[in-house]
């Protein structure tokens, strides 16, 4: 059985990775745009996480693929590398309808997600 470590990435590390990634495309606009992007994430992220949980509960591989893929995409675009990687594992589970592994992975996804949400809440 795969055991996932529920340790979360420190906020300063998340911020650093995010800044490196987004500065690449936003340049000087990073400081101005980050709160706006964070706000979008705060609105959309919890909805997607809720959809992932429902898909696992309902054992719906298609819904799990769509929701985990969407959260992975938003997270990766923001430079939230670790959270995107966790979502990728869940998305992979959807392909084989491996709900057991997806369920095992969820605490790690949620912990990292909450850490990100907490960081974003401090910004807006």
């Amino acid at each position: 059985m795969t055991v996932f470590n529920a340790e979360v990435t420190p906020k300063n590390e998340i911020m650093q990775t995010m800044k490196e990634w987004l500065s690449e495309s936003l340049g000087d606009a990073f400081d101005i745009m980050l709160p706006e992007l964070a706000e979008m994430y705060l609105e959309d992220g919890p909805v997607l996480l809720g959809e992932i949980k429902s898909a696992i509960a309902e054992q719906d591989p298609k819904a799990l693929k769509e929701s985990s893929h969407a959260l992975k995409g938003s997270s990766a675009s923001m430079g939230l590398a670790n959270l995107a990687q966790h979502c990728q594992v869940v998305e992979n589970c959807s392909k084989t309808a491996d709900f057991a592994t997806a369920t095992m992975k969820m605490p790690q996804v949620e912990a990292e997600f909450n850490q990100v949400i907490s960081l974003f809440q401090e910004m807006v």
Partner: protein
Amino acid sequence: MPRILLIDDDRIIRKLVENSLTSLGYTVTTAESGAEGLKIVKDVNPDIIVTDKMMPGIDGFEVTRRLRREPKFANTPIIVLTGESDLEDKLGAFEAGADDYLSKPFEQKELAARITALLRRSEALKAAQNQIEENKNKAHIIAVHTLRGGIGSSSIAVNLAMALQNLWNMPTLLADLVMGTGQLALMLNKTLTTSWANLESIPPEELDLPSVAKIISKHPSNLHFIGAPNDPIIAERVSGETINAAISLIRPRYQYIVADLPHNFSNATLELLDIADQIFLVLAPDMASIRAASTALNVYKELGYDPEKIKIVLNNTFEFGAIPTKKIVTALKHGVILELPYAPKQFLNGINRGTTIIESDPEGKISTQFELLAFSNSQETHQSIPPANPSLTWHRVNSHLNLFETPAAKKKQKSRTRLLFSTG
């Protein structure tokens, strides 16, 4: 400013891409689903489309497939953003008709670079297509020219035009620009009711299609014709600008225009020579004619005409004493595309009876020469594809040149093969 349509259900990605591309000078319109993208695409009329692959409802592959089915967007560059890095997804993008893909997450700089490259390619393609379209919509102009009159250049022009008309059954116009004689009308047995002179009172910039259409008459063969006035004084008043403006107006209406040019380098001549796709320089095998041809070739060279555009037609107007073709070719340093035999009776009969050699003796040697000349100087697109309803002339040319296997030719071949087997 290039327009981009971005289709992605993730508004964070939309925001990031929009921000990045707008800062580079692109106009970005976003859609949050495949359905919305397809709904607004016509209004946006994008130069490039970027679509996410995985979206609820209509996904990026389906968006691409549907756009490719629409002629308007058949060639619009499309980039698919794939969330996965597996080969199947990438291949799927190309199978759907996309031009490129980009795996998420991607750096904005990479997307911008791919967009720039695709737009550059697309612009080049568009320019090439426009050129093809432009050429497709313009008549192929053949100017028949000589600096020495009386050597049959008008007969060559009228027979060539008739051969083109009969060969393709496509709109073909014969324009008589040898002002003051009205000779081609005579050769076509047409009463000169209208001519270039009817346009003389209209300033060139005010000419319109209806006024030019009024001076075009139709021969029973369907060949269209604009006559030259037979009064030299009236003819003087028709300017080169008027002729050029009129030809420009009617050029899109025809597939072929054969212009019989004045025997000089007047404004009217130069205007036509400039726009002609081919110049047939006519000469007879005598010293005066060769000198005149040499002068004409020098002027063409000075005017910067492509040597490929110039074709020499030799008309053997003498029974005896003609300068041999080889010597003419050496003197002019230019090959002869057509050498017409000494046939004064046929040419004279044509003029006197108002009928072309093509009509009076369609199976004769001279007609065949004109038909082959017409075919080999036709538009490449016409030469390369057999017509849907081939004319008798086309069949004759085809059997001479053995270019395409027609059902009739196949049948002939089959019966020949059968015969070979039965006798073998």
